[in-house]
């Protein structure tokens, strides 16, 4: 057969059989381990305000609305999905489906 990517390999079929079975076990173990220790991190970036602790949730768990952060000279308007503040977080229906960050929107007090 012509020269190709596997041409020079000095690996036996037997070795590959073992490798494949070990590989599948490794995948199963990894999935079980990562699932048990897994979770999504919902971070609250208060963008200059007081620290808000992140929440570590499993898939489908509702995100709890944290106590509002404070910032000197500013009024807290709410949590938003993006830094452009186009989409407000609706805590009555927000569930954890991936790790993400939500951002605090502030308005300066005149």
């Amino acid at each position, binding site marked *: *057969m*012509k020269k*190709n*990517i*596997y041409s020079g*390999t000095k*690996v*036996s*079929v037997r070795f*590959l*059989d073992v*490798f*494949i*079975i070990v*590989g*599948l076990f*490794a*995948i*199963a173990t*990894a*999935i079980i381990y*990562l*699932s048990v220790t*897994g*979770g*999504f*991190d919902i971070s609250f970036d208060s963008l200059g305000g007081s620290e808000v602790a992140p929440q570590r*949730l*499993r*898939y*489908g768990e509702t995100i709890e609305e944290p106590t509002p952060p404070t910032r000197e000279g500013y009024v807290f308007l709410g949590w938003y999905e993006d830094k452009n503040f186009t989409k407000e977080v609706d805590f009555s229906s927000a569930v954890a*489906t*991936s*790790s993400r960050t939500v951002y605090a929107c502030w308005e300066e007090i005149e």
Partner: protein
Amino acid sequence: MTAIRKYREMSRTQRKEWMRELIINNSLYVFLIAAVVVIQFISPNFLSGPSIVNIISLSAANLPIALGIAGAIILTGTDLSAGRIVGLVACVSASLLQASGYPAKMFPNLPTMNFLLVFLIALAIGGIIGLINGFCTAKFNLHPFIVTLSTQLIVYGGLLMYLNIGNNNGQSISGLDPSYTSFITGSFISLGSTPIPNYVWYSLVITAIMWFVWNKTTFGKNMFAVGSNQEAANVSGVNVKRVIVLVFGLAGIMYGITGFIEAARIGSNSAATGLNYELDAIAAAVIGGVSFVGGIGKIRGVILGVVLLRLIFVGLTFLSIDANMQYIIKGLIILVACAIDMRKYLVRK
């Protein structure tokens, strides 16, 4: 029928051998399907209506790029520029199809463009870059790895420059024209209460066309011939250089289609759009039986690979495995898929 006759004619040991080959060669599929069943058991929402529509939609979005890259793999090459081409096409398409009243519009004086025209522009961009990849590979006899690695970086640089022109200063391009987004992501059929996006159907049509090209055209036969044995193909009259150029060109067109769909699908496009897409595409192709040896691959294999990969990763999300950790599983799956591919080659030898 011949398979059944062959089986009857086998001796006991041959039958054991055959069974063993069958089990090992399909072990990854069996494993992944078993994992899906277990995940469904743990988290019954996994295969619910909305979730299945989501999985089908994600698979449909990833199918054209996988089909394009499969062509390059069949030629014993690879295409590392796929993702960045998708990103470039997505950003260009998005920039030309922003809503007319949108405040942060990139080209404020641009009238509403006909999206079929923009589609042709998308195909042209993808196709031209693909043809360049093919030309450099064929003419200078360079390995596609080198050519597409360079193209990947040059395209990315071009994309970064493009995002700075007009009214857009490197920001994401969003605020797309509603008729464009509804053409791609709108739907006219629902599964229960979940709408099936239109791009699923477009993807199926494109897959059918690729099946026809691979199996029923001389070009397709030549592609497999060049992939199996370039010298033999050359000797039997196939214009090897032209086949290489056209296969990469066709792949580029597929990336263009992917980019056009992706722009509307994700809604907000930036320089990060398309990053690493080729990895998922190559993984899907290899899992689906497209061999690195060259000259071997089936459309149904690519579909199977794309769907299985998507199914597993949605499943891992249901198991609360973070996207970053999913890379480990992805790597292990690719490793096993390559080992199976290598084993098939060694057994044939």
